[in-house]
Each structure stands twice: as structure tokens, then as C-alpha cells.
């Protein structure tokens, strides 16, 4: 019995790992009636895999049987792999026992589509209901919305889950049609929109009646596979920005494609996953969400791709040198945020501290800004007077010369002989 359980866990955890979302934040669900578990506002990563990704949820598929044949997916119908399926009780037992030992922050339950959407959604719902109602479990639950499931099932699931998500899979409709002819972005947009409207409606009702239950308190997220189809960074980020705006998503995840089959439409087996590109996309995502950048400033027709050798914030600053240097002691908070080498925390500290007197270099360094990078874009109380106005490419040279990239072992301007 336990041997079979171990086998199933191996198969179904392995199949679920390509879903990168593992966040457990955003839910403040309380532990009621002396049950077990609660939400943690900022989430807790309980461990990290050897590839450096956080593990906070028990991320598994209910089953990897699937009626679809999407070229980018390991569980596709035509792939010859071992198939398995958990029973409802097995998932509940695993979750409760892992949770009680503080291994995990909650459950991330997804599934291959078997029979049809409603049948699958109903199974997922059964697991979640058993956890919440019978086990008195109040920990985090991330549930996949199965595209095509009925509104009733989705609404009921939303009452028990903390976060729900549906993956866009490919950044553009043409990309998706190429690799998964049976699917369409429309299938994703409809339920995303439905859940978004339900969230708003439940929130409105809760304002009037306190006993209205929580509905997907940690919001929705989605994921795109990067590098399987030939989209530009611009196309990817415009799609992301659009989805952030239209569906109030909490997160969009970018998952570098890891070749899993010999399909001629995609990169061949053994190709390195595009880790650097993925990193740059996440940096852009952060700039949009926390730094007040508009996606059109970072990516546009003149710059459809992000630079690989420097991060998008530095690259924006170098393209817009007419804004700089700014005076740390007088500039707007919004403008300080845009300086390469200054993060949100430091920017807030700077704005508070300068009310007590002009700030000097040693103070900025102590506050924690990356001074060697930021110095080209700021002046403060004791900035040395500079006779020469450096050009963008010169500044880029200075910064690259003293920084090390974990991705580029040799500097880009160095030509290789062999």
C-alpha cells in the first residue's frame, strides 16, 4: 500500500512540477474552531529545490491521464509515460500529514483532464471540500480552474480555495494554435473573467453582510511558457500587462520551456532552458508592478527584446539619460524608484531620512543602495563634481566592467576565438 503511494506521489509530483507557481501569500484565512492551519499574509517557503525554486505547497496532479494532446506538456495523450491517479482520501491524508509536520504551507492541486471538464473539476472540488469540511483544515489551497467547467462548480470551488489559476500556456493565440490545436485563449479568458467578477461581487456583498464567506481571497494567477514558440519579449510582456489589467491577476508566471519531446515544432531535446530570458522577463514584471513603469516604456517597437547583458531598469535609464542625474535630496519618490541600484525599501528610507537633513554618500551606502551602479544617475550632498558628461555606452561599460553576471561568464564585448 505504502509502496504504491510512493510510486503515485513520484509520478504525479513529477508531472506537476512544470507549473511554476508556488506562492502561498495573500490569504489571511484564520484558523477557526481549533482546527489546523491558517493563511500567512506573506507566505512561507518551506524549502527550496536544488534548482533554487521555492517549495511551499504540495504540488501534485490528481491524475496525469489526459484527453488533450498539447505538444508542450509531458502528460499529453500521445506521450508514452506511466499514468497514475490519486484517490480523494490519499490526497487528503498526504496534505494533512505533511502540513502537521510543518513540511508545507498548503496544497496545490491540479489535474489532467479525464472524461470531461466538469467531471475533473468535480473531483478536485471533492478533495478540497473534504479538507475544509471534514478535516477542519484552514491552510492554503491553490486550485486549478478547469477550462470549460460549469459556473456552479467554479463558484463552489472558489468558496474553499485561496487561489485559483488557469494557464495561458502560450503568450499568443497563434503560438497556442500551433502546439495545441484543440485549445484557445478564449477557453482561458472566460473562466478568468468569471472568477474575477465573482471575487468583486463577493467583496461587495461582504461590505454589507459580514457573514459572506471569503471567495478566492488570494486572487488568480496564470502562467506562460517561454521559448517554445518564437514570440518576442514585447509580445510576451504586452500579453502579461493586458492580463494584469483586465483580470486583476496577482501574478503572471513565465516558465522557460524545458524540451521534453522530439516535436519538430519546438526546440530539440537537450536545448538549455532559457533561464536568462526568464529572469529578464520577471525583472520587467516587477518593474511594472512595483516600480511604476509602464510596459511601453520598457518594450516597444524600437526595442522589442530585452537586453541580455543588462537588466531592464538599467537599460531604460541608459536610453533615457535626459532624466538623469537626479538629486536624491529633492527628487520625487517615483523618480528615485527609477534609479538603477535603488530598490523599493531603500527609496522609502531615503524619502523619510532626507526630511532630517541632506543625505551624504556614506549614508546612502549604509541604507543599502548599490552605490557603484546608482552613482552615475544621482547626485547627493557630497557627490564629487564631474567635468565630463558620460555617454550611455560609456556608463554601460563602467557598470559592466565592475559587475559579474551569473549568466554570462565572459563579457559580451569580448570576442571568442574558438
Amino acid at each position, binding site marked *: 500500500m505504502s509502496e504504491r503511494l510512493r510510486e503515485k506521489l513520484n509520478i504525479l509530483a513529477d508531472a506537476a512540477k512544470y507549473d511554476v507557481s508556488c506562492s502561498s501569500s495573500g490569504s489571511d484565512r484564520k484558523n477557526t474552531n481549533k482546527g489546523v492551519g491558517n493563511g500567512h499574509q506573506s507566505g512561507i517557503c518551506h*524549502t527550496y529545490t536544488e*534548482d533554487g525554486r521555492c517549495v511551499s505547497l504540495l504540488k501534485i496532479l490528481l491524475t496525469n491521464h489526459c484527453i488533450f494532446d498539447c505538444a508542450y506538456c509531458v502528460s499529453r495523450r500521445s506521450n508514452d509515460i506511466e499514468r497514475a491517479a490519486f484517490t480523494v482520501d490519499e490526497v487528503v491524508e498526504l496534505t494533512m500529514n505533511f502540513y502537521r509536520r510543518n513540511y508545507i504551507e498548503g496544497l496545490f492541486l491540479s489535474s489532467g483532464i479525464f472524461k470531461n471538464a466538469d467531471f475533473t473539476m468535480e473531483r478536485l472540488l471533492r478533495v478540497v471540500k473534504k479538507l475544509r469540511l471534514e478535516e477542519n483544515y484552514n491552510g492554503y489551497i491553490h486550485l486549478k480552474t478547469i477550462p470549460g467547467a460549469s459556473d456552479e462548480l467554479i463558484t463552489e470551488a472558489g468558496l474553499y480555495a485561496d487561489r485559483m489559476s488557469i494557464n495561458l500556456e502560450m503568450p499568443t493565440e497563434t503560438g497556442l494554435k500551433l502546439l495545441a490545436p484543440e485549445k484557445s485563449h478564449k477557453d482561458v479568458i472566460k473562466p478568468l473573467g468569471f472568477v474575477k467578477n465573482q471575487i468583486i461581487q463577493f467583496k461587495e456583498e461582504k461590505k454589507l453582510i459580514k457573514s459572506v464567506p471569503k471567495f478566492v481571497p488570494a486572487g488568480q494567477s496564470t502562467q506562460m511558457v517561454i521559448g517554445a514558440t518564437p514570440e518576442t519579449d514585447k509580445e510576451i510582456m504586452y500579453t502579461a500587462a493586458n492580463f494584469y489589467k483586465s483580470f486583476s491577476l496577482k501574478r503572471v508566471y513565465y516558465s522557460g520551456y*524545458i524540451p521534453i519531446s522530439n516535436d519538430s515544432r519546438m526546440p530539440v531535446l537537450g536545448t538549455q532552458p532559457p533561464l536568462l530570458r526568464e529572469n529578464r522577463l520577471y525583472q520587467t514584471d516587477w518593474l511594472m508592478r512595483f516600480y511604476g513603469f509602464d510596459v511601453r516604456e520598457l518594450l516597444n517597437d524600437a526595442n522589442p527584446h530585452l537586453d541580455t547583458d543588462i537588466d531592464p531598469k538599467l537599460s531604460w535609464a541608459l536610453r533615457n539619460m535626459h532624466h538623469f542625474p537626479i538629486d536624491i535630496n529633492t527628487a520625487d519618490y517615483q523618480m528615485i524608484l527609477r534609479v538603477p541600484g535603488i530598490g523599493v525599501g531603500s527609496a522609502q528610507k531615503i524619502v523619510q531620512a532626507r526630511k532630517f537633513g541632506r543625505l551624504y554618500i556614506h549614508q546612502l551606502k549604509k541604507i543599502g543602495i548599490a552605490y557603484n551602479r546608482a552613482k552615475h544617475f544621482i547626485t547627493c550632498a557630497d557627490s564629487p563634481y564631474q567635468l565630463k558628461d558620460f555617454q550611455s555606452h560609456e556608463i554601460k561599460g563602467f557598470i559592466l566592467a565592475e559587475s559579474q553576471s551569473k549568466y554570462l561568464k565572459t563579457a559580451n564585448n569580448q570576442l571568442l576565438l574558438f
Partner: protein
Amino acid sequence: MIYIFDGSLEGLLTSVFEWFERKPGAVTIVSKQKYQPDVFTTAFEVLTDRTKADRVWQGLTKRLDRRWMRNVYCAYLSEIPEMQQEIFGFCIYIFQNPAGAEKNYGNAQVLNIAQTARKVEREKHRMEAFIRFQKTADGLFYCGIDPDFNVIPLLVNHFKNRYADQQWIIYDIKRHYGIFYNLETVEEIEMDIDINLLKKSNQHMLDEQEMLYADLWKDYFKSTNIVARKNTKLHTQHVPKRYWKYLTEKL
């Protein structure tokens, strides 16, 4: 001038009270254990006084918000020797300046307290993440820890709220005390047992299913890894090696 105090937070707060009563100018404060008499400076022994300490704490509460009060407490829990002097100086600075002075991150003491508190909070957060309970044969969930800072007082609420229906013990092996939740309240405990009993390998004391779930967890940890993306540097950055001894999946 040197103030000698007993090393407790109350003693530290009493010192602040005594300083304002006497105004002796610059003062170095040192705990009894660390004090070494020298010929050139005069020493004054601060007698810890609950009411004086309370008055200082209340005074701080009026000037600082809850987050900053917690920063001061966290800085104390760091047990870093220099922090005593920093907290002492910070309190005086707060009392001598108009409200809002704690926002002056240009001030070295303010910044130091904030940054140290952040380190302590990080350690607390790591404990919330890396504690791995083992279920014993009598149904108790146990974990031994040895955190860099004395974070157990900060862990009480989190674990009490989360694991309300199971008895658990978190024990600080380095500082020889722990907390025990008896399904009603959390109490401080001191155990007088052999350190070896606290290690992770005592199978005869454990619940019969403990090993199964530990193995399942190890399996899960392996299956969820993507080999093509291996990034050991990032891995150890997130899970520094000194915590590996806690982690079931790393044993």
C-alpha cells in the same frame, strides 16, 4: 562613565531611566558578565527595577508605533553585544527628539536597530519555514532548533494559531529552553534530557507512521526538482547549509 546592568531587557530600560535621572553625559553600558573594572572610568551599578523599566517602555510606546516597538524588542533578542549600547542610545535619542525621529535613517543608531531587527525577523521567518516536526509515539509533535538569534518568543503566536489541535514542542537546544503547547496555552519549558535524544534519528520513540511520511516527503522533494535547471548557488542562498540539519528532506 560605565553603567553596569544585569543583561536583561528590563535592566537595559532601567539604565535609560537612571541616565535621565542623572544626565551623566556619555555612558557606556555593559552587562555584569562582561564587565571588567578599569582605573580610569567610574562605574555605576544599575539595579533592575520593574516600575522604572515599565515607565521607559510606556514612554517609548507613546512615541513609537507597534512596528518600531517590535524593532527594539527584536534588536534586543539578537543578543549581539553591541546592540545593548545601540538600544540604550536609541532610547535616549527618541526621548530627546520630537516625535517621528525614528524615521531618520540617516542616523546610524536608527539604521542599525532597523537593520538588526530585520535580521532577527528573517531568522524568525526561517524558523517558521524550516522547523520540521516529528510525531512521537505518544502523539506529540517535536522539533529541536538552534537559531542564530533568540527567536523563540517571536514564534509562539504563529505556531499556536496554526497548530491549535495538536500538542507540540519547539526546543532551543543552544539556549536550553523551549515552548510547549498543551492544546490550551503555550508554556515555557526546560528539559533535563540528553542532547542526543533530541536528534532526528531516534526511531523507537517515534510514531509508527513517522518514517513513512518522512520518506514520502523526501520522495516529493526529489520529484519536484527539475534537473535541467540545476542552480546550486541559488539553492544554498535560500537554504544555507547551517539549516540543513533541521530539514527532513536534506538528511
